[in-house]
């Protein structure tokens, strides 16, 4: 098993109650492995979401992916009482996913 932390870096962004995870693979080999293994279903399960709430875009030129997790932030920065309403910390949750 390999942690995402060994293959890529992740940056979190938010739009309303949607969490956006940018996944940047360390190199071409890591990108190809992630392309196979880091599926919408796997990411959804890791974040406790239905797979229909997650979309994935691939950017081969930049060895990167963008995942959109809708509804995860439950009201976003203003509608949610969570201390981290933006979900800024969530990138480090994806880094622990094992493939």
């Amino acid at each position, binding site marked *: 098993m390999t942690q995402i*932390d060994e293959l890529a*870096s992740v*940056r979190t*962004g*938010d*739009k*309303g*109650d*949607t969490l*956006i995870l*940018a996944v*940047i693979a360390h190199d071409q080999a890591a990108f190809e492995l992630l392309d196979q293994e880091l599926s919408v279903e796997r990411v959804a399960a*890791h*974040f*406790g979401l239905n797979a229909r709430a997650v*979309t994935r*875009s691939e*950017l081969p*030129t*930049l*060895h*990167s992916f*963008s995942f*959109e997790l809708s509804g995860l932030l439950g*009201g*976003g*920065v*203003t*509608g949610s*009482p*969570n*201390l*981290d309403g933006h979900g800024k*910390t*969530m990138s480090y*949750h994806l880094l*622990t996913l094992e493939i």
Partner: protein
Amino acid sequence: MGSLTLSSPSGLSSPPKPAHHVRVGAGAGFAGDRLDPAISLAEHGRLDFLVFELLGERTVAAAQRRERETAHTGFDPTLVERIRSVAVHCAANGTRIVTNGGAANPRAAAHAVAEAVRELDVDLPVAYVIGDDVLSIVSDEDPLTWETGQPASTADGELISANAYLGAEPIRRALDSGARIVITGRVADPSLYVGALAHSFDWDHSDADLIGRATVIGHLLECAGQVTGGYFADPVTKPVAGLARLGFPFADVDANAQAVLSKLEGSGGEVTTRTCTEQLLYEVSDPSAYITPDVIADFSHVRFEEADVDRVRVSGGTGTPRPSTLKVTLGYDSGWQGEGQLSYSGLRSKERAELAAAIVVQRLDELYDVDPESVFVEYIGMAAAFRGLVAVDDPAEVRLRIVGSAATRQVASIIGDEVEALYTNGPAGGGGARKSVHSVVSVKSCSVDRTIIEEAVSVEFVDDSANAPANNDPADENTAARRRGDPA
């Protein structure tokens, strides 16, 4: 105590700007950003433009609420100090300033900035853009919100603000008219940069590929330190040197919107293909369709190439024509939120914190009729920010955080009072109580036909005498050069 006067560290420098290029720098990436990196850039960056991005999605709604409570206070509270601290350098170096720090009242902001600039005895004509405040249009049209599919007027809470995301064109018009400082309200973040570049190169705003490429540059710069190693660094996997003196980025841009991203030599941080890639994808849901008021930009073929240390060449952006509607952020008065926090450390931390929470929830229910379902509890130290996705069984320390909402400040303040009272009435060893109350503005979004909004957008100057026919002002070399079709 140290000094409150900020100064640049010594040993900063920047290379001369290449011929036929415009240099745009980031002075701030959000309202709470540091002040000193902008001073360093203004002093040593040889900038044509310094851009302060100061508005979040919610900031403008909160500013509208402030303006309603006290007139002429609806602009960014840090704006005047930011401009005061760079104005002398900007005047000396021919650097113009663009900012969305006008927030809910660009006119009041412009007058306050103009006064500060006058006190410094520098000549920087101030223009401002109005027309992003579309509350009356939204009240008339009552569009459906993106989040609920229902009319804007039917959402919970009183609708207190509606601000449209304007694009680059009014900024360009202000600069074309001779403004040295341009202050806007809600403008899309990358458009602050696109407006400056469009002025400098006399661009055609309907050239979607060109504006798409410029939007890539604006998006990379808009969060300032996030492209030079901030929000990127990890001491183990991605160490970045000099974060305490993180340098903010600038870009050397040519007439075709090809750019090299860089930062001051001697400043902290780094500019690499990796910092640039992370920022390119930041907050971008569909990289092939990044929608702004100016263009639908396509980031999917963007390439980064390290031209030198801390110098990254950006190319490959494209675009398709801009949308026929503008995004509008709606702000609703959502009452008050109160919270209290208390720490438990050592043996049975978790169990004591859980008991404490149960006591507060029961008392709020029985004494104040607060629905237990509406009370929000976090156990900080037990992966609270991961929102229950990770189980932590035996934490060394837990900080209990209890949050509740109420219609009035008085009721909301009870939450923190009840947590504080646990000191003497709750589980053993609770320490470090803190409480707070703040008003809540919640936001939703909708779309409005851009022609209705743009009819009401205008550019005005603080002092009309500054708005002499500046397009013909021979003293304004940049404008004169632009009219010859040359880059500034």
